[in-house]
């Protein structure tokens, strides 16, 4: 699983590379564009994902160390719930951008300088790809929840659950980097 996570890091890494290049070329535009985002929403989402990481590891701990499958199930449900909350906030954010015409090929965006166009192109690509991974993570965690309830995942057979947790934590880590790069440009 760690090797798979490595390849995921390199996938997002390619996007971080593109971001790095264009930010270096258009530092002022990137700053201006970032002001269009809601720092509150970004911070809220960061807190949501960090908390979901906590519930994820508590779920694994509850099964592996404490052997309390019901608690594990509740923690998994909470993690999935937080993932859903993250997506809801994201949907509101994207909706706001659509309303203001700040999406690829929109007329309003076309009037902005190049750096801002690139910023938003990258914003939707990177947060979109991240959201896709959040959805995949939620699906995997739901399967794990079913396994825990159906006794397919137990204290002895918890490898799959642990791997699912690792995947979820990686999704969290990617957001930990996306957040400052898009929302906190001073």
């Amino acid at each position, binding site marked *: 699983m760690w090797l798979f996570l490595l390849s995921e890091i*390199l996938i997002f890494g390619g996007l971080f590379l593109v971001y790095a290049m264009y930010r*270096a070329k258009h530092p002022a535009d990137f700053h201006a564009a970032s002001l269009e985002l809601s720092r509150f929403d970004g911070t809220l989402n960061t807190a949501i994902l960090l908390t979901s990481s906590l519930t994820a*590891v508590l779920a694994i701990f509850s099964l592996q160390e404490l052997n309390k499958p019901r608690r594990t199930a509740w923690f998994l449900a909470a993690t999935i719930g937080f993932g859903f909350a993250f997506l809801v906030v994201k949907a509101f954010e994207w909706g706001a951008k659509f309303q203001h015409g700040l999406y690829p090929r929109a007329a309003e965006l076309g009037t902005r300088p190049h750096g801002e166009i690139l910023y938003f192109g990258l914003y939707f690509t990177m947060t979109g790809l991240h959201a896709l991974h959040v959805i995949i993570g939620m699906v995997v965690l739901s399967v794990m929840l079913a396994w825990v309830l159906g006794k397919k995942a137990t204290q002895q057979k918890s490898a799959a659950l642990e791997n699912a947790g690792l995947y979820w934590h990686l999704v969290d880590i990617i957001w930990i980097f996306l957040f*400052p790069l898009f929302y*906190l440009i001073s």
Partner: protein
Amino acid sequence: MSYARYVYVWIALLVLTAITVTTAGLNIGRVGIIIVLAIAAGKSTLVLLWFMHLRTEKRLLLKLLVPISIATLAIFIGLTYTDILTR
């Protein structure tokens, strides 16, 4: 053996988040990105070591995997910079 450790790490993560948001509000120019990236790296390290159990991982190669991938990425970005920044 309890949940406590994990909760403490979570609190630390939230504190770091608060710090990084505050820092971004200040007007400190180019240094800003270094600070926020450093804090992000710190948060990621906490997640890796504690939530992803790298602290207690015995196999050395697994502990090195993330540093290796970050290093690879850094090299790719660095070499590309030699073009983008000097044109």
